[in-house]
């Protein structure tokens, strides 16, 4: 039996803020523009251009700081981080080193052994870099500055995590808080939330930390889990072999399942930080702080407790619904429009989750409106459509957010409630299916199901199945 090791992990989490414009200029942050069409002299580093801070960036950063129990720095500044790279048009990044906006916070996560606090060392504001495009066949790279200057906050944790599970729980917690604040959509796949993992190992029980490495390029929770396992093993192997772990930045290649050192003679890692003379200090006033505090939303735990009080829906549903701010909003707004909570919850839990999964989407991507969901529930409540039609309408709503009432009208999907017409169809079905009729009369209860199905088919689905059932029984 070899030695026991403990993994010590701290995270640097970058979150793209959901502002309309970039951090230092009036260019849009919208995704999907043609390369370099969302740029100006400021975010392409043109000579003579100057940065001016977007107020909303500060508001979001302070809001996240408050939600993570940080001290807000009342006198804070921006610094320049100097390094040459083509995605960084000024060859310095405007960031915060000496006086970051938030410090000294913590969040609580659930672990196998109960609650655990993860310390937050600091949160700072900074600008994102542009995008580099590479083609293996070409001997050049291309630069697109559309993302250059998109606002980021970097949340730096203390080295308080000990396993991949804790890391994921911490990230989930941050994501939930930030989504609830509306400060970011926190999508790892799209890069609006990115995590760098600082990891070291030490013998179990040791007091000193081991030498840590920093791993970059982790694009999903599963990549993080694999990278933590891989790096832990690599460091233990080094130690067991009597070698030293080198403090360095490593790039995780999830396809190969290996990390590689990102070292070069030309990267001195000496960023020559100094206060940016083009920007003035930020003084966070009591009024500003109160204003942000006043706007803090109801966070997940509070929401869960309230749902439990207010709505008669299962704890499981509450957990899923509040797991996404967007879904919780959708739920509450639909209920506010008069729909019964249980029914709203059912649509979300069954059909919505199914379609999200089928389409590989996040709850944040749901596009249908509370108004249309409420409308659909109203139609089913009034028995204007049956449940099969309702599902069909819902699918359309999920795709294109159609107005269910109009859609049902246009497509002629309304249930036929005219008893005369229905009776006529049922009579025809009875006449055309003597075998089933006989089976039923001989005590084969199940045969009625076939007859209901035949009737529904003849009615093109637009009948209320319970009414059909009732009529069949009557006529048989």
């Amino acid at each position, binding site marked *: 039996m070899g030695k026991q090791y403990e993994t010590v992990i701290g995270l640097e989490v970058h979150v793209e803020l959901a502002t309309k414009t970039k951090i230092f*200029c*009036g260019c849009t942050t919208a995704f999907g523009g043609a*390369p*370099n069409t969302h740029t100006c002299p400021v975010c392409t580093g043109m000579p003579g251009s100057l940065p*001016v801070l977007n107020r*909303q960036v500060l508001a979001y950063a302070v809001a996240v700081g408050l939600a993570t129990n940080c001290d807000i720095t009342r006198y804070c500044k921006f610094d320049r981080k100097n390094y*040459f790279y083509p995605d960084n048009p000024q060859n310095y990044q405007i960031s915060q080193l000496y006086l970051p906006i938030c410090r000294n916070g913590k969040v609580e996560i659930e672990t196998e052994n109960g609650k655990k606090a993860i310390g937050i060392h600091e949160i700072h504001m900074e600008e994102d870099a542009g995008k580099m495009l590479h083609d293996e066949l070409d001997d050049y790279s*291309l630069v697109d500055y559309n993302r250059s200057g998109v606002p980021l906050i970097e949340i730096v944790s203390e080295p308080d995590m000990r396993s991949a599970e804790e890391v994921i729980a911490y990230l989930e917690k941050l994501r939930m808080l930030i989504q609830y604040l509306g400060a970011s959509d926190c999508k790892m796949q799209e890069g609006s939330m990115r995590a760098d993992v600082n990891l070291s190992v030490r013998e179990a029980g040791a007091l000193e930390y081991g030498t840590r490495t920093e791993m970059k390029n982790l694009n999903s929770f599963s990549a993080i889990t694999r990278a933590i396992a891989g790096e832990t093993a690599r460091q233990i192997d080094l130690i067991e072999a009597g070698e030293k772990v080198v403090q360095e930045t490593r790039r995780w290649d999830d396809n190969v399942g290996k990390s590689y050192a990102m070292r070069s003679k030309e990267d001195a890692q000496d960023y020559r930080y100094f206060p940016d003379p083009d*920007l003035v200090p930020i003084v966070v006033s009591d009024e500003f702080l109160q204003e942000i505090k006043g706007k803090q939303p109801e966070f997940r735990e509070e929401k869960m407790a309230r749902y439990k009080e207010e709505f008669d829906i299962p704890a499981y549903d509450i957990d899923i619904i509040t797991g996404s701010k967007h879904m919780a909003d959708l739920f509450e707004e639909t209920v506010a429009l008069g729909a019964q909570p249980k029914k709203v919850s059912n649509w979300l839990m069954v059909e919505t989750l199914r379609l999200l999964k089928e389409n590989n989407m996040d709850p944040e991507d749901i596009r249908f409106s509370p108004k249309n969901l409420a409308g659909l529930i109203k139609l089913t409540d009034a028995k204007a459509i049956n449940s099969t039609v309702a599902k069909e309408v819902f699918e359309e709503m999920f795709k294109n957010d159609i107005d269910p009432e109009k859609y049902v009208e246009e497509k002629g999907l309304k249930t036929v409630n005219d008893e005369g017409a229905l009776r006529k169809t049922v009579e025809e079905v009875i006449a055309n299916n003597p075998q089933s009729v006989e089976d039923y009369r001989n005590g084969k209860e199940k045969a009625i199901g076939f007859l209901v199905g035949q009737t529904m088919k003849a009615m093109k689905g637009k009948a209320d199945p319970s009414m059909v059932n009732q009529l069949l029984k009557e006529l048989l």
Partner: protein
Amino acid sequence: MANIISDETIEYVGILAKLELSAKEREEAKKDMGRMLDYIDKLGELDTEGVEPMSHIFPVQNVFREDVVTNGDTRDEILKNAPKEKDGMFVVPKTFD
């Protein structure tokens, strides 16, 4: 000269500043930087204990923009100055291998 600048220092600063000096320039740079640093060391004569470093002269603070889109697409103009461009992007030597 109190400050002796080594070849390693010049090499290192060259990496930071992305400058490549010829042998002659390098010798001059060593001499110039040494002399300048000797001169700057004069500041050591002043007692600055307890003096806050002053980056801005005036107490101007909290200068913000509102979060409103004001810029349109000026890509073609901006790219006109690029030494090399392709498909609306800036061309640089390959950075990935």
